[in-house]
C-alpha cells in the first residue's frame, strides 16, 4: 500500500518534468538553447501566485470546471497497472472505466471553453469534440485487445500478466495495438500532428483555444491536468506495451520505468520535430488508421484464439 501511494505521488510530481523534457529535446534538436527541465514547476508556481481573473460573461461552470477537469484524471492515476513489484493495484477496472473517466475530463474542458462565450472557445470545443469522437472507440478497442491478450480484462492485472508472461504468438496483434495506442497518445494529448501545444494562432489551436480565457489558479490546475493526462497515457503505454523490468527490486524498477517514460518522450519529440501539423480535416485520416489498427488487432487475436 505504501508503494502504491508513493508511486502515485511520484507520478504526480514527475508529470510537469516530462512535458518540459519534450520541449527541451525539441529545442535541442532545432539548435536552440534548451529551457530548464524544471520550467514546468516554475510555470506552476508562477500561475499559483497570480491573481485569478474570470471574464464577466461566464457562469458558475467556469468556477467549478477546472477542478472537475483535474479530478477524473487523478482518479485514473489510482487505477493504473503497478510499476514496481509488490505494489497494490486495482484489478477490476477495465478499458471502459478509464476511457470514460478521461472523456469526463475532456467533457468539462469543452464546457469550460464554451462558457466564456468567446468565439475562440467555441471553436476549440467543437474541434476537441470532433477529435474526441474518433479517439474514444479506438481507445476502447485497443485497451480491450491488449487486456484480452494478457488474459484478464482488468488493466492492473493485465499489466502484471504481461510482465510475467509475454504472449509470443500474438505478436502481430500486439504490434497493431501498439501502433494504434501511440497514435492515440498523440491525439489525446494534443501533440504536433494533431494540435500544436505552443501556438496561439486561431487557425491552429485546439487545446489552447479552450483555456484561453482563464488565468491564475484555474490555469495552473488545467495545465496540471494536461500533464497528468500525458503521464497517464505514457504510463499505460510503458506498462502495457513495454512490459519488462517489473521483476527487479524497487529502485531499479523505478529507474527502468522512468527510463521508459523518457524514451516515449524522446519518440514524441522526434515525431514533433519532423512532422508538420495536420490540417483539421486530415486528422480523421490519422485517427482512421488508429481505429482500423485497433480493430485489426482484435480480429487477429480472435482468429488465432478461436
Amino acid at each position: 500500500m505504501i508503494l502504491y501511494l508513493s508511486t502515485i505521488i511520484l507520478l504526480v510530481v514527475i508529470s510537469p518534468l516530462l512535458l518540459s523534457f519534450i520541449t527541451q529535446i525539441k529545442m535541442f534538436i532545432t539548435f536552440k538553447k534548451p529551457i530548464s527541465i524544471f520550467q514546468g514547476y516554475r510555470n506552476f508556481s508562477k500561475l499559483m501566485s497570480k491573481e485569478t481573473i474570470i471574464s464577466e460573461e461566464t457562469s458558475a461552470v467556469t468556477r467549478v470546471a477546472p477542478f472537475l477537469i483535474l479530478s477524473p484524471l487523478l482518479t485514473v492515476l489510482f487505477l493504473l497497472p503497478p510499476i514496481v513489484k509488490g505494489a497494490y493495484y486495482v484489478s477490476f477496472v477495465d478499458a471502459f472505466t478509464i476511457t470514460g473517466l478521461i472523456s469526463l475530463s475532456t467533457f468539462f474542458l469543452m464546457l469550460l471553453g464554451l462558457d466564456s462565450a468567446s468565439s475562440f472557445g467555441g471553436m476549440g470545443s467543437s474541434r476537441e469534440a470532433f477529435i474526441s469522437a474518433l479517439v474514444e472507440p479506438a481507445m476502447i478497442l485497443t485497451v480491450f485487445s491488449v487486456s484480452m491478450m494478457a488474459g484478464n480484462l482488468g488493466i492492473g492485472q493485465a499489466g502484471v500478466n504481461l510482465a510475467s508472461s509475454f504472449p509470443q504468438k500474438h505478436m502481430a496483434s500486439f504490434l497493431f495495438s501498439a501502433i494504434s495506442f501511440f497514435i492515440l497518445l498523440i491525439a489525446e494529448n494534443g501533440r504536433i500532428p494533431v494540435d500544436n501545444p505552443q501556438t496561439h494562432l486561431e487557425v491552429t489551436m485546439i487545446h489552447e483555444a479552450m483555456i484561453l480565457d482563464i488565468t491564475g489558479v484555474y490555469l495552473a490546475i488545467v495545465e496540471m491536468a494536461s500533464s497528468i493526462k500525458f503521464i497517464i497515457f505514457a504510463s499505460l503505454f510503458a506498462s502495457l506495451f513495454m512490459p519488462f523490468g517489473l521483476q527487479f527490486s524497487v529502485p531499479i524498477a523505478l529507474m527502468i520505468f522512468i527510463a521508459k517514460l523518457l524514451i516515449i518522450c524522446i519518440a514524441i519529440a522526434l515525431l514533433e520535430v519532423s512532422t508538420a501539423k495536420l490540417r483539421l480535416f486530415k486528422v480523421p485520416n490519422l485517427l482512421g488508421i488508429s481505429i482500423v489498427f485497433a480493430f485489426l488487432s482484435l480480429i487477429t487475436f480472435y482468429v488465432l484464439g478461436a
Partner: protein
Amino acid sequence: MDNFLIGLFLATLIISIFTARLYRLIFWYFVNSLMLGLLAVFIGIKVHDNALIVSGAITLVLKALIIPYVLKYLSKKFHLQRQITPNIKVHYSVILIPAILVFTFFIAEPISHMLQANPNDISISISSLFLTLILMMEHNHVAPKIIGFLTLDNALFLLGITATNGMPMLVELGVFFDILMAIVIINLLFKDTGVKA
C-alpha cells in the same frame, strides 16, 4: 518473430491505403517488401530451406531496393502527379477496411483449417490480397495502380511462403523475372502519350 514481421506487412499495407502522396506510397511499399524479405529469410533459416533464403534475399534486393528506386526515378522523369488523393473518403474507408478484414478472415477460416500453418498468417495473406485490390481501385492515376500491382505480387509471395513453405525455386525465379519485365514494360508505356486520334 515472423508474427511480428507479418503484422508489420499488413500494417504498412493498410497505411498505404490511406496515404495521399506518391513518394510516401513508394516508401511504404519499400517497408512492405523489406518485411517480406526478412520474413522469407527468417522462415528459411528456421526450416533449413535454402530456396526460401535465396528467394528472400532476391526479394530484399529487387523489391525493396531496386524497384522503389526505379519507381522514384520514373516518377521524376515523366513528371507523374505526386498528389494522389484516394477516391473513397476517409470516413467510408475507415468502415470499409475493417468490414473487408472481417469478411476475408471469415472466408479464410476454412482454408486455414485445411492447411497446417498458423491460421493468423493465412488469414492475413488472403486479406492482403483483397486490401490490395482496394488500393488499386481507389486511385484514378496510374502510378498508385502500378504500386498496387506490385503489392499484389508481394501478397501472393507471402501466401506462397505461409501456405506452402515457399514454392519451387524455378517458379519463384520466374515470378521475379516477370516483375522485372513488368517494370520494363511500364517504363516503355510511360513514354509518348501519343498524338490525339
